[in-house]
Each structure stands twice: as C-alpha cells, then as structure tokens.
C-alpha cells in the first residue's frame, strides 16, 4: 500500500507547522521521520491518520484521498500516537477487544487476533491487569498491540521508544524491523541511531519542510564532501603539525586535545591526503602509528541540515 503526500500544509494561526510537503512512500518501506522537536513530524502523521484535516494539500493511500473516504483510510492504518494515550481503567484484553471491534475485525477472528497480539508483544503475564498497573514499557507494547490488532497495511508510530529503557528500546526496534518485512511503516524520532537502525529511508523534516530524503548512506555521502582523517605520528608534535599543514592536499590540521601526537586532518575538496602523509613520514623517518578515515556521522548531517 503506497502513500502519496501532495503539497501538504497545516497552519496553526499564522504559523505553518507543515509547509508544502510532498513525498511518496512505497509498499513495504520503513520510513523514519527525523527532525528536531516541533519540526512538523507529528502534525504530518496526524494528517495522514485523519486525526485532523490539512489546511491545504492531499494525502492518498492507493488513490483513496483523506478528503473523500477517511473511514476507509483509518481502517488500513494502525497508529501509535505520541505519548501513547490509553484507556487506563481498562484491562489489557478488554482494551484490545474494543480496538478490534471498533476497527471492524470480524467477530469470529477477534479472539485469535488478541491472542496473536499478546504473544507477539510479550504481554502474556500482564494481559488481565488494568493498563494503569503496567509499567511504561508494557504500556508501549499495549499501544503497539492496539495499533496492529486489525492487521493494518500501514503502521504509523509517533516516537515509539520515548521513555523506554535500553533493553526495551532494543526489543521495540526489533519488533518494528520484523513488522517492516510485511508492512509499510512510518516512524518518527529525534534519536538518530534509532532511525538509522530501523529504517530503510530517512526523511529529515525541519521547520515544516523536508530538508533531506534518502537512505542513511546517501544522506551521509551527500554531506560528506571532504575527507577527514585521524592521524597519529610519533615525533615532535610541533614539527609534525607544521609539516602536515604544508602538504598540498591538506586544508586543515587540528591537534586532538589531550593526546600528544594525534591530529585531525581535513583534506581539500575532492582530494585525498593519505598518500602524502605516508610519504611525509617515510621521508622524515617518522613512525606513522595510526591513520583512520572518519565517517561523517548522521548527527553531523542532521545538525548541518536543521540549523
């Protein structure tokens, strides 16, 4: 099931929370919305899930528009809202039954769907408890279970791992990855490693606009540009710094704080200074202890794009 978003705009008063966004998501993709807080990630999700209407623009799921048939669209989407709101006074099983009924799961299939969700989300020991007795991690699982109860083709998860401990985060990520094999998944996050670990494709959203779109590798290489090396040379640091700086392909040399003889070396655009540094050491009879290429981190890409 593909999602097409066209020229979506949502205004809150004068402020545009989402500003003319367009993108397309193909069946089976796991897409991460990445952006600082207040960038418009949640608003975009709320529009796709038909919680609120956009000021202008359209969202279509397999050619069904949110303006023409929101009921049909809601049926195909499983949604975990931000902060995971739940009916706290309900027992887990009752809540899942309610979700299944209201999403139109046939009555004969409801018990098997509930059993499957409880099994899949690891809720077996908690299933008869009231939701308000559960810890945050288990509530999150209930939130995922209710989103998936009607076996939707699209899952939309708004910050699915906030407030979880590291073990729970790993579990939820694994669950999302599993789900991504059969479903189209959109998740939002401001944690980069999370998006990198779970998503096929990343949309960086900033101030209501799409700042970048691609896999984590393409995003990295797009902004990489210049080679960055970490070098360790055993010799007098002052001499080394001066010599390296005078090399033809080197743009910038910065000593690494607290480590004598270590430098960060940035090459000029479209040039490599690896060989030059090696030759320099050979000529001067210095020992080259280490030379590592530094990969641009997604954090840097993100910071560059969202500043």
């Amino acid at each position: 099931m593909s999602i097409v978003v066209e020229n979506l705009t949502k205004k809150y008063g004068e402020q545009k929370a989402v500003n003319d966004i367009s993108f397309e998501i193909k069946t089976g993709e796991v897409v991460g919305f990445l952006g600082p807080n207040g960038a418009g990630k949640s608003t975009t999700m709320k529009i796709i899930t038909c919680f609120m209407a956009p000021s202008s623009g359209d969202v279509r799921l397999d050619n069904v528009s949110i303006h023409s048939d929101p009921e049909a669209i809601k049926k195909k989407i499983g949604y975990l809202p931000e902060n995971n709101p739940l009916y706290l006074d309900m027992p887990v099983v009752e809540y899942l039954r309610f979700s299944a009924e209201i999403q139109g799961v046939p009555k004969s299939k409801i018990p098997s769907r509930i059993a499957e969700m409880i099994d899949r989300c690891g809720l077996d020991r908690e299933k008869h408890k009231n939701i308000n007795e559960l810890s945050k991690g288990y509530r999150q699982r209930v939130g995922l279970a209710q989103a998936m109860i009607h076996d939707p083709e699209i899952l939309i998860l708004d910050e699915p791992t906030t407030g979880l401990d590291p073990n729970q985060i790993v579990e939820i990520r694994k669950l999302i990855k599993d789900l991504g094999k059969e479903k189209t998944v959109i998740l939002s996050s401001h944690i980069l490693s999370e998006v990198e670990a779970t998503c096929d494709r990343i949309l960086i959203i900033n101030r209501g606009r799409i700042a970048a779109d691609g896999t984590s590798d393409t995003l990295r290489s797009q902004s990489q540009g210049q080679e960055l090396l970490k070098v360790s040379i055993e010799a007098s640091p002052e001499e080394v710094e001066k010599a390296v700086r005078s090399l033809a392909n080197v743009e910038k040399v910065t000593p690494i704080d607290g480590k004598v003889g270590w430098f960060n070396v940035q090459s000029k655009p479209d040039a490599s200074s690896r060989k030059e540094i090696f030759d320099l050491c050979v000529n001067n009879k210095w020992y080259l202890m280490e030379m590592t290429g530094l990969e641009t981190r997604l954090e840097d890409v993100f910071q560059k794009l969202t500043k």
Partner: protein
Amino acid sequence: MSKVWIITKRELASFFDSLIAYVMIVLFLGLSGAFTWLFGSDVFFINQANMQVFFSIAFWSLFFFIPAITMRMIAEENKAGTIELLITKAVTDSQIVWGKFLACLLLVLIALACTFPYYITISQLGNIDDGAVIGGYLGLILLSASYISIGLFASSITQNQIVAFLAAIFIGVFFHFVFGVVSSSVRGFFGELFNYLSMSTHFESMSRGVVDSRDLIYFFSIIAIGVLLSQVALSKRNWQS
C-alpha cells in the same frame, strides 16, 4: 455490530468499573426515595395515589446528577489524549458522540428502572393514573436526554471536568429555571417564547399524562442541537490548533 454500540458498551463498562454508576444510582434512589416517602410533602402527606411527588423530585435531582455523569465523557479524553486514539479508529465524530450519548442515557434509564417499585407500591395504595405515570417517565427520559446532550457539549469544549460540570449546570439552569421565571414576569410574544423554552412547562404537561407534539419537538430539538454542537466542538481540530 454498530460502531455506536461498541462505544456505548465501553463507556457503560467504564461507568460500572469506576463505581460512578453505583454512586449515581444509590444517590438518586436515596434522594428521590426519601422525599417521595419520608420527608416534606411526601406521598402520605398529599394523600393521593400518584407519582407527582417522585417526578418533581427527579426533575431536580436529575438536573444535578446528569452533568456529573456527562462531565468526563469528552473532557477526560481531551485531557488524556485518548481522543486522538479514538478518532483515528474507523469511526466518525458523530458515532463517537452518539455512542457516548447513548451510554449516559442507558445509565439514567437503569436508575429510572430502579424506581419501578415505587410505582408498584403506590398503585397498591389507591387508584393510580397509569397515563400520568407513563407520561411522567417519558418526560423524565426526554428531560434527561436533553440534559445529557447539553452536558456532552459542555464536556466537549474543555479538558477540565469541573469546568464541564459547571458549564453544563450553567447552560441547564436557563432551561430548568431561569426561562420559566422570566416568562412569568414578561408579557406578550417574549413571555410565550420563554415559556416555550422552559423545561418545566413541557415536563409538567407530560407528567400529567398529556403528550403533545409541541413537547416532543422541544425535547428532540434540544437533543439534536446539543449533540450537533458537541460534534462541531470535536471537529474543531480540523480548522484550528
């Protein structure tokens, strides 16, 4: 199974799980029972086998009880954010409001059904006018439905249950009381108008056993307007922040 009924079922279960239902029923029965049988101008004091005493007590007690059961219906969901969860399920705004409306109405019906022994007892004491009893109960049901729709609207415009309660009482008091008082001191067209807008005008004629289409139109209009305004308040998210 209808979507409205699924929502109604959940709300009713939540009434009974949270003890609201029991507290409401016990208080209602206690209050109306005490004044029907024991205190003030009770059945033995007026010495007639009719249920007018009970109806006039219920007329007032329901006025206060109904905002107490409607106040949380939408306001709580607004506050907890569960409204987002509910709206993004495959239901329409109108199904949500009607489901909640029906749940409140069923709770009131259960409370009213519990007063059926009053009828049996009084009918043993003398000749009772069954028409007036049926009319009176019908009047109470329609009155309750009207206040429920007002209460739902009050609940839909806020996140705070206390505000919802007070707003419902505030809107309700005009229909319950103020319009009647005003109509008795104003003559001509406006006197007629306020008299028509007053709940008690319509309720009293029904509790005497006279069911007029004017009364039915009045109650159904209030119900429709209240429910409609709740839907409008719920869909407000579509055009503003």
